């Protein structure tokens, strides 16, 4: 199957600072790509470049079926105005607003889709609540419902598990798995290695002026993580020793 997006020889950064260069990567349908890196390594910049909000310094993007009309997107919670006076139901409906345009109402089908998305995100009981009454985890679920309604072939999630508890994270990961099984490509910026190792097929590690891409097991090895400034030597040794012990116990 042809990849949704082919990226060739990409360089990303600002006129005075190149974050990384020479990145070539295929984003294929049904894959889950984790983007990792230290603060300032260019993770969010990479996502915004995919959205078309930032131009790359160099390189070429080739969409196999043309740029999709809709790219699913979840921004960091810090960029969101939580005091804005709308209900959870209306926030989720924004995901489908291209479908109903500037004037027309949602219609029966639209309302049913919104209800189904809220139910899948586990917040149907909060549908009529105002945004400012939600916790961080509840708001993240509402934003996931909006991404569900975008119904896009490529989904970009910028730090989706920041400020959510373990139960919410597990629920949101199950939604990501469903997207993957439906043949959508999911790109997610994450900080926590454990969620990446279990749920993502590929990883893109940014840092130290370079970008390394490949299957998760190949990219996220201790030497690579230390070389690109994601972990210190002692953190890497401790983390992977723990991982090996856990695997031995599970085999035994």
């Amino acid at each position, binding site marked *: 199957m042809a990849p949704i997006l082919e990226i060739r020889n990409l360089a990303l950064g600002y006129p005075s600072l190149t974050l990384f260069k020479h990145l070539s990567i295929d984003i294929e349908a049904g894959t889950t790509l984790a983007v990792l890196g230290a603060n300032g390594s260019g993770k969010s910049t990479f996502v915004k470049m995919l*959205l*078309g*909000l930032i131009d790359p310094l160099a390189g070429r993007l080739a969409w196999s079926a043309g740029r999709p009309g809709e*790219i699913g*997107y979840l*921004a960091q919670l810090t*960029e*969101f*105005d939580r005091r*804005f*006076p*709308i*209900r959870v139901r209306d*926030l989720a409906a*924004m995901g489908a*607003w*291209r479908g109903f345009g*500037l*004037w027309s109402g949602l219609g029966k089908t639209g309302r049913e889709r919104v209800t189904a998305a809220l139910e899948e995100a586990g917040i149907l009981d909060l549908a009529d609540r*105002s945004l*400012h009454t939600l916790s961080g985890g509840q708001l993240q679920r509402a934003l996931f419902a*909006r991404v569900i309604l975008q119904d896009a072939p490529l989904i970009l999630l910028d730090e989706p598990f920041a400020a959510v508890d373990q139960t919410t994270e597990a629920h949101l990961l199950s939604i990501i798995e469903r997207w993957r099984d439906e043949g959508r490509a999911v790109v997610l910026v994450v900080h926590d290695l454990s969620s990446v190792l279990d749920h993502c097929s590929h990883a893109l590690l940014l840092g130290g002026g370079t970008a390394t891409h490949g299957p998760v097991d190949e990219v996220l090895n201790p030497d690579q993580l230390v070389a690109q400034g994601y972990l210190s030597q002692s953190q890497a040794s401790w983390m992977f020793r723990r991982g090996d012990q856990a695997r031995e116990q599970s085999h035994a």
Partner: protein
Amino acid sequence: MLEFFAEMWSFAFMKRAFVVTTVLSASVTPVGAFLVLRRLSLAGEAMAHAITPGIVIGFVTTGLSVISLLVGGLVAGIGVAILTALLARKTILRSDASLASLYLIALAAGIFILSAAGSAVPLKSFLFGSILGIDDASMMLVGGVATVTLASFAVLLRPLIVSTCDPVFFESQTRRPWLVEQGFMLLLVLNLLAAFKTLGTLMAVGLMILPATAARYWTSTITGQLVLGFLFALSSCWIGLTLSYIFPETPSGPAIVLVAGGFFLLSALLGPLGFGARLRKPSKANQPQINQSYTEERTQ
């Protein structure tokens, strides 16, 4: 009482003032609501001052006509908006500091030119408005601006809601996100010009911001915000104009804005999203679960 109102409305200028401010209330309400929601309240105030030199230069050169007001104000408003964006993008200053610097220069320049030209129009009515100055042309201006504003909001409302609530998501959804932002700023300048005759340059933005902030204390929906904002704006205008009639030395601008300020203070005190929520005793249904179990444990 009835005789008082009959006498007040027997004056043509008072009838005009009531009609103009009613239309103006409908026009400035959505602009004010989104100024507040987009956290641009102070930028709106600054913009009101920034258009002063344009209006003054237009007045000094061609007299106080609607065309000179419109052209001078638009040139100054758009000029300041472009300069602010340039300073914020190309220099170390943020947009609030750039706008503050520019509006102070513009306001000072406006007052300086007006005083130096030995204007026939008293400075007080220029800065604070006058209900005596509303002629046919001014009514046409307010009517035209209101029509443009309400028609524009019919198109811009949904994009404005999405871009205000989640700007990065909105940018990812559209190829020309700046159209909404710049269109909104243009509507702001047009409404400031429409409000200028009644409220003056210093008070024009008051009718936008105060009813919107007052409404925000009562409602958690955009519809509620717009409906309540309009009712507060309309009531402020009618009561303010009546006060201005009773006290003839009082300019209409401060009278109207003062009443709007009264609505704001009352709303902050009594509104469910203001201090009102803290003053009310919480009902049993709203008490957190943990308090109930704690109470049960204590009574056992």
